[in-house]
């Protein structure tokens, strides 16, 4: 007896079996030979057989789903056509990152932001782009383990049934559940089920980078913990006190998208747009700021207080330097001018007292309810709130824990240094770990259960603004893994249930009678409409006590999540490991940020190893001299120093958790810094970040930006003009909008099958990224001007590379593309020698031949995988151009403006990149290039690039 398979439904295969049957009766040809097995499975099966021959094990819980390859190609169903599914990945903090997944022959090959979702609007950050690679990680956990040895699910289930029986006898006393932060409604339903059945069971949360202090602050100010949602699209003046609004994190896409909306309106002359940032360590928000103040972490409170004092909210603090005074004065003036259109935001990592001050100030300037929305917290709150993890460890130490199930958390690595988790764990009778990897915690637990990746699982999750996404699989699980919900179900001693059924059960409750249609609609759309967290009209903020201002005589240290690895959860993702950190372009390592003065005083150079001692603990870390760092502050980045034998992330960098205390998780005072000596070379993709050359990064005043563009000088060339035919492709990159977030680089990795080469080769200057984001630092190292500049191929009209190639492997297309013909390339590298922009990348070794089958399955089938010894470079995503051209030809029409979007453009949260036909004056890219801000890189080379830049707008118009 065949059961209908539980797979996602797209538009073409409706969920109702009756419709399927009717369709089969109507179109017998299309269904011929398919028999009892659904067409979708066949696609899935074919994908699986193509990609994973020898690897797929059918999951035991779905025995009726056969995996068969196509023998005959079904009519009208070409296997090379992509299919798209709206879903989400549960990203940082459990928040949904809505995506539109592309699959070819059943293999997911690309994720894009979900255009209709209010938190994405089509954009996706680097973490979300890279989630795709996580699916194909060959070092993922593939089978259950008992005491480190492979076991089977039967044994695991038997153990779970036994455990449940034991727990039943004492109402769940001694059962503890530890997870990462969760937003999933199905998870909430299952937890309440567990607690209902076993009232003495308890759920705990460990989220190393959390919002506990923000929730505490809102609780102080408004009487209950609330979610703070900035509306940067409405804020003409933003004052950030150590709040990295545009930096990496679950809110980045939404914030950046909104910020750019305001910025684009400002560029068009609507209203003002100014950003004031006071922060101890440089951030993406700091780079985007008009006025950035480097200030010691302990003094953020004082600066905030001075700002509040201008609005009569607090007594003025005693000591403020002239520079601080000036910054506070300018910020206060801007805020009071723009009341109701201004925002004050204090970082979630700041102490609650400073944050309440900020909330009071926001209230005073009319931000609350306009530019700052308050809502019920989206993340599920564990019973003990912020003290959740501490309570668990205390119970474990007291011997009160019988069974501990750890799901998607890694306390053995990421717990505070003084928590004593590992010692307490020995007193727990039964330890079970469920997660994607055999990580540090898995090694300490008796049992390990591998779980499904978000792209092969059923679940649900909420985005930062509350909208619920349904997570549906794009592909069948590769290995013998289970959904998280199924693991929670077996914990209760129940038979294994399908993930789909568990999620559907949650929504059957909510949707009620209209379940079928609402469920189908939500799956198609990828999210449940009207589930955003409703705004709460908050009562007046409590007037806070003046922020405690603790002057520190020694050095201070702040902790930050790593910009690409976060709290360590992405350590196994090679795209994110090789993604250059935005501000120092270091890959595969975390660094200890030290300001130039402090480094000089300690005789430190970038790459040296320094010892950091605080509170009786020490770490040794590689130093990076960081311009713009506050003078006596160190920044340690979490997420590295992993101990993951045989995994990608093993052993890189240092472990900052080793000195991170439970009491003050974000800052340390009285830190002692000493030099140890030279260290191994750090792999940075940009050794020279100082900009001493004019014209590369440009800035103009607002008035200049709106002036008409001067006519271009006549281009002179010895060579005859290249014949042009059809649309002329070009790209415009707005450096005024670019925040350096790296989403484009990761999108390019995924779209164009970019090889990952590893730390050693990056250190030798052999990274393969087609698109890089240059970071420049200019002026006084203590208070520098910084700039980001994404650099893809310039597609020069007079391209020096084309002249250099002896075999014509790089040639000019009639549409202005500078083409690279891989199979004609013999590898003389002349093209790269002649390229002034150095955007070409060479295959020094065979980077792809030894890829495991999983990695091959990820590749975009429309992009050639390059072989050893050939040159490659950005193609403007020529496969997308071809696709659109073919489609337009089939439909006998011209390619519409905006129809083709390059991968970098599509994912960019700030819409900094625009691609299109430059020969059409009405196209978006032509309108951009017609602006006075438009300029070419290295115009003196007379290469006439098709990629041009828009200068940044600065009120004083100077430099970068």
């Amino acid at each position, binding site marked *: 007896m065949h059961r209908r398979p539980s797979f996602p439904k797209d538009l073409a295969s409706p969920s109702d079996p009756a419709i399927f049957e009717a369709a089969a009766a109507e179109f017998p040809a299309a269904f011929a030979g398919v028999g009892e097995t659904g067409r979708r499975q066949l696609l899935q099966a074919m994908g699986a057989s193509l990609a994973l021959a020898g690897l797929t094990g059918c999951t035991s819980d779905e025995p009726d789903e056969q995996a068969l390859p196509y023998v005959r190609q079904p009519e009208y169903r070409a296997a090379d056509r992509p299919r798209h599914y709206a879903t989400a990945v549960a990203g940082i903090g459990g928040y949904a990152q809505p995506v539109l997944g592309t699959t070819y022959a059943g293999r997911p090959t690309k994720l894009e932001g979900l255009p209709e979702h209010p938190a994405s609007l089509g954009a996706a950050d680097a973490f979300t782009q890279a989630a795709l690679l996580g699916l194909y990680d060959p070092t993922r956990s593939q089978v259950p383990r008992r005491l480190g040895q492979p076991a089977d699910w039967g044994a695991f289930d038997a153990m779970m049934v036994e455990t449940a029986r034991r727990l039943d006898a004492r109402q769940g006393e001694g059962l503890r559940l530890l997870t990462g932060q969760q937003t999933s409604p199905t998870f909430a339903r299952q937890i309440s089920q567990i607690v209902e059945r076993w009232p003495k069971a308890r759920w705990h949360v460990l989220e190393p980078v959390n919002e506990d202090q923000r929730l505490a602050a809102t609780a102080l100010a408004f009487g209950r913990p609330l979610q703070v949602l900035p509306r940067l699209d409405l804020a003409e003046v933003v004052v950030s006190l150590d709040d990295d609004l545009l930096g990496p994190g679950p809110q980045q896409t939404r914030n950046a998208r909104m910020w750019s909306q305001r910025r684009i309106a400002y560029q068009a002359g609507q209203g003002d747009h100014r950003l004031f940032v006071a922060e101890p360590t440089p951030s993406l928000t700091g780079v985007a700021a008009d006025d950035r103040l480097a200030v010691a972490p302990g003094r953020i409170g004082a600066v905030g207080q001075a700002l509040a004092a201008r609005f009569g909210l607090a007594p003025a603090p005693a000591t403020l330097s002239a520079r601080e005074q000036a910054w506070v004065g300018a910020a206060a003036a801007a805020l009071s001018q723009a009341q109701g259109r201004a925002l004050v935001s204090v970082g979630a990592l700041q102490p609650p007292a400073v944050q309440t001050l900020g909330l009071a100030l926001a209230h005073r300037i009319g931000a609350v309810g306009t530019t700052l929305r308050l809502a019920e917290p989206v993340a599920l709150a564990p019973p003990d709130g912020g003290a959740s993890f501490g309570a668990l460890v205390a119970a474990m130490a007291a011997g009160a824990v019988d069974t501990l199930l750890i799901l998607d958390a890694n306390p053995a690595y990421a717990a505070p240094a003084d928590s004593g988790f590992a010692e307490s764990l020995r007193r727990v009778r039964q330890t079970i770990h469920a997660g994607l990897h055999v990580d540090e915690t898995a090694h300490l637990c008796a049992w390990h259960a591998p779980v499904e990746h978000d792209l092969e699982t059923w679940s649900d999750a909420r985005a930062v603004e509350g909208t619920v996404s349904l997570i549906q699989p794009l592909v069948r699980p590769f290995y013998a893994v289970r959904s998280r919900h199924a693991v929670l179900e077996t914990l209760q001693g129940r038979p294994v249930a399908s993930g789909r059924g568990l999620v559907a059960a949650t929504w059957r409750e909510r949707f009620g009678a209209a379940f079928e249609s609402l469920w189908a609609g939500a799956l198609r759309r990828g999210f449940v409409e009207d589930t955003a967290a409703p705004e709460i009209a908050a009562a007046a903020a409590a007037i806070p006590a003046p922020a405690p201002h603790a002057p520190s005589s020694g050095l201070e240290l702040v902790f930050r999540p790593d910009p690409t690895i976060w709290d360590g959860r992405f350590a196994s993702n090679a795209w994110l490991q090789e993604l250059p950190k935005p501000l120092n372009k270091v890959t595969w390592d975390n660094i200890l940020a030290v300001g130039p003065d402090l480094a000089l005083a300690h005789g430190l150079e970038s790459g040296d190893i320094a010892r950091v001692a605080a509170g009786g603990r020490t770490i040794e870390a590689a130093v990076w001299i960081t311009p713009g760092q506050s003078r006596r502050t160190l920044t340690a980045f979490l997420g590295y120093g992993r101990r993951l034998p045989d995994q990608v992330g093993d052993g890189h960098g240092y472990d900052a958790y080793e000195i991170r205390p439970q009491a003050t998780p974000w800052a340390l005072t009285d830190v002692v810094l000493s030099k140890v000596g030279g260290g191994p070379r750090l792999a940075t993709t940009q050794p020279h970040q100082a900009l001493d050359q004019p014209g590369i990064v440009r800035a103009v005043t607002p008035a200049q930006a709106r002036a008409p563009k001067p006519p271009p000088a006549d281009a002179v060339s010895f060579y005859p003009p290249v014949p042009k035919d059809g649309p002329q492709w070009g790209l415009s990159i707005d450096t005024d909008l670019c925040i350096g977030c790296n989403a484009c680089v990761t999108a390019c990795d995924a779209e164009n099958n970019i090889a990952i080469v590893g730390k050693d080769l990056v250190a030798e200057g052999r990274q393969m990224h087609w698109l890089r984001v240059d970071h420049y630092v200019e002026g006084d190292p203590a208070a520098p001007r910084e700039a980001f500049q994404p650099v893809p191929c310039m597609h020069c009209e007079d391209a020096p590379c084309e002249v250099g190639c002896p075999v014509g492997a790089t040639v000019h297309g009639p549409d202005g593309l500078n083409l690279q013909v891989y199979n004609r390339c013999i590898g003389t590298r002349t093209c790269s020698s002649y390229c002034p922009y150095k955007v070409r990348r*060479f295959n020094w070794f065979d980077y792809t031949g030894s890829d495991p089958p999983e990695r091959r399955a990820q590749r975009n089938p429309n992009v050639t995988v390059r072989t050893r010894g050939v040159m490659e470079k950005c193609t403007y995503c020529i496969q997308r151009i071809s696709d659109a051209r073919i489609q337009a030809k089939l439909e006998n029409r011209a390619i519409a403006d905006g129809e083709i979007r390059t991968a970098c453009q599509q994912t960019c949260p700030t819409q900094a990149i625009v691609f299109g036909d430059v020969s059409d004056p009405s196209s978006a890219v032509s309108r951009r290039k017609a602006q006075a801000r438009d300029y070419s890189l290295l115009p003196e080379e007379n290469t006439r690039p098709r990629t041009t830049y828009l200068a940044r707008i600065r009120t004083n118009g100077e430099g970068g």
Partner: protein
Amino acid sequence: MARREKGREIEKITEIPLAYPRPRTWAAMFAVSAVLLGLYLVSVGVLFWRGVGVWGEDIPVNWGIAISNYIWWLGIGHAGTLISAMLLLLGQDWRNSLNRFAEAMTLFAVVCAGLYPIVHLGRPWFVYWMAPYPSTMGVWPQFRSPLTWDFFAVLTYLIVSALFWYIGILPDLASVRDRAKTRRAQVFYGLFALGWRGAATHWARWRRAYRLTAAIAVPLVVSVHSEISLLLAAGPIPGWSSTVFPPYFVLGAAFSGFAVVSMIAVALRHWLGFEAVVTERHLDLLAKMTLATGLMTAYGYFAEVFNALYSGEPAELAILHNRLTGPIAWSYWGALLGNFAPLQLLWLGRFRRNPYVLFAVSACVASGMWFERYMLVVSSLSRHGLPSSWGSYSPSFWEWSLYAGSLGLFLTLFMLFVRFLPIISASELKGEASPEAAHA
């Protein structure tokens, strides 16, 4: 007395291939060369097996000592043709004592040079795509590329040098054949002597062919290194893109070539006792040529600096600054020091005629020119274009081993030449000695 001495030595030239006078020394030297040649083969093997990544090259410095050695070797391969062909046409009889081994040096140096661009390819097995051949795909080389010009220039130079050398050696091969006692030697030299009987018609045709080939070879001396310079100068790269490059390269090439000919002349003269054939006068003339071409090369250095300063281009000035003070300034100052400081000794006649001094000065020049080629290739590439993509370069073990190996290839070929072929043009020396030949 000296005349009789010279006559004996001329006789000796054609006897050496049949009964080598110092077999032990030769065997030892050959063994060293062969080991180095083995290193060459191993280095190429590793390179082909694993890919160009075994070298220290990167983006932006994707040409390293492979290309700088290529230019260096080709430069050395210049003096042979210059001495033989140009001086032949100018009627400078003193060249007869030097031309044969200078030509051999040219040939072997061009072989060493020519292999470099092939092995440095990402996919060396497709090197034939650079040749215009009737491909079924209808693809053709890209004629705007300096590398295509390079391909033709080097190939032409190799063919003409080989022809010129072979035509020149023909009468001497016949002499060796005639003196050979063993059957094997008779057959071997007989085959290569192409039936030369020394008839008057042979001599007349030989002379015509020799002079004709010389006339073809002379322009190549200028063209080939001019062309090599375009490999750099045709690219839009500060520090490379300069019209001074062709003459600068040609003169530099002649300079290094004369230096290496001087070294070989001194070595062979001592080793095999040719003091009467390769006299102090020859050393003096070689030293003068080295000095003269050296001074012209110095002008090239000056012109390069002047051009950068006079242009006022920030990029050109930055490259100049980088060369003089940057991370590879050692190569600039090394080149300046090696090329021009010891050279000044050659103003004095007693140093010019002193073989030890001449050898030492020439060795300095050869290494100085190596530094120069390295400096030119690396300094510009490492600081080209956007500051974000500036980089650095340090050659890896396999690059050094390939360089040492290419010296081994050169020495092996040269050792075989010294052992088995007449190393000095006996027929021309004889002709020079006989009064009637003076009018030829």
